[in-house]
């Protein structure tokens, strides 16, 4: 058995830790570092509850060795919030896109990648993108509503933040609207 010293940036914080070769990223995040947003669900790579963003891509952290994630930038669902719920989280809240909420952190991570790449997805595209996130409460209808709502709000925020005449700046994401009273 070999152990490895790795460095990860998780939700903006640089973390140094030593992992076994066989340590899975989800266990490094939860058990070693205390980031409990990614959940352990099926453990076979099907359910998506452990999904986090790794260097901008949604990945199933139960199917990535922690040592493979050395030097990467990981964002969990908790790291999406900035002084309050982010627009995607807010939309899941408003549309009741969750029941027990166990799958929700993974749904949020996947939704972020979807909306980064496709800001105006159809309902079919939303369903396709979330294929790898299973909800045992069968709440998919509201989840799709939530992603649609998030896409609309992000699009509105972006267009209102853009000065007239400038369009097509891909990397410019508008400041998310701050929900009142949220901590």
């Amino acid at each position, binding site marked *: 058995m070999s152990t490895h010293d790795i460095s990860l940036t998780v939700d903006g914080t640089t973390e140094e830790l030593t992992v076994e070769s066989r340590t899975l990223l989800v266990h490094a995040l939860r058990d070693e570092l205390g980031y409990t947003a990614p959940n352990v669900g099926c453990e076979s790579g099907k359910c*998506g509850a452990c999904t986090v963003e790794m260097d901008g891509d949604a990945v*199933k952290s139960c199917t990535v060795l922690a040592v493979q994630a050395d030097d990467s930038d990981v964002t969990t669902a908790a790291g999406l919030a900035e002084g309050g719920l982010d627009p995607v989280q807010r939309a899941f809240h408003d549309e009741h896109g969750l029941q027990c909420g166990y799958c929700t952190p993974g749904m949020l991570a996947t939704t972020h990648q979807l909306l980064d790449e496709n800001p105006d997805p159809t309902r079919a595209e939303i369903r396709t993108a979330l294929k790898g996130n299973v909800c045992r409460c069968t709440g998919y209808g509201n989840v799709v509503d939530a992603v649609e709502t998030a896409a609309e709000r992000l699009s509105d925020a972006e267009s209102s933040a853009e000065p007239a005449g400038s369009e097509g700046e891909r990397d410019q994401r508008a400041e998310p609207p701050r929900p009142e009273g949220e901590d």
Partner: protein
Amino acid sequence: MFPAEFDYERAESVSEALEALERYADADVEILAGGHSLVPAMKTEGREPDVVVDLDVPALDAVNALDDRTVLGALTTYATIADSGAVRSTVPLVAEAASEVGDLQIRNRGTIGGNLAAAHPGADLPAAVLASDATILLRNRDGKREVPATDFFRGDGETAVEPGELLAGVRVPHADGGGFAYAKKTHPATGYAMVGVAAVVETDGGGDGDADRDAGGEGTVSSARVAATGAVDRAVRLPSVEDALVGDPLDSAPIDAAASEARADIDPERLRADASASAEFRGELLEAYVARALETAADRAAGDTPTA
């Protein structure tokens, strides 16, 4: 579920990987590419290698589209293949098959090299590389070795890769006009193909397809390559279907006749069976999905907009 203990080594070049394979020649070694076949197998299927050699080789994560062929490095992810404009324009069948793999998260990490080397009997890309007449590119301590896709898949998890060898990439020739399609019946639990059919059909008839059609004429099939995954223990070509297509127009009646040959090359005893589909049902699916793939290929050959 945790994998059993193993030693891990990262290889940052092909030569480092080959050196590691040589150094561990007496051990049970696995090569890690994207990890989306190997890691689940190590968690749930009792796969317990002594050593895992992790490929972290940027040169193998590359798409090289040339005039008549496209070379995909082994570490190219499904997502890159599915989304790459170069792949979609030069070898669209491979892009279409990659877009059908698993889900978004799996496509972000899983790689074509890992997929082909793992040789799952229901994997999507083996059918696509067979129907594309691709060549698998191997590296070993003596240099390089090339294996036609038709000789590469040997069984469930078995390939032509020999000990000490590394799958470096795949070379896919560009099709010469015509149509293509990958049609898949997805296994409801695993996401692999219960049956998947890849087809590349080239037509001629004295002009390009559009002009022919506009003139009321029809191109005839000059060559066809049709491959199936999921049906038996490996991806296979279906030569009886291919032979039935050649010389006829790519229309409904000849397609139905060709699809009816789908089981001619497959020993019924070899058809896979599981809780979702009996062997007999898989045979029925095979015929139906051959027809679907060919119908889509015909639409595309006729100039309809591909939806890949």
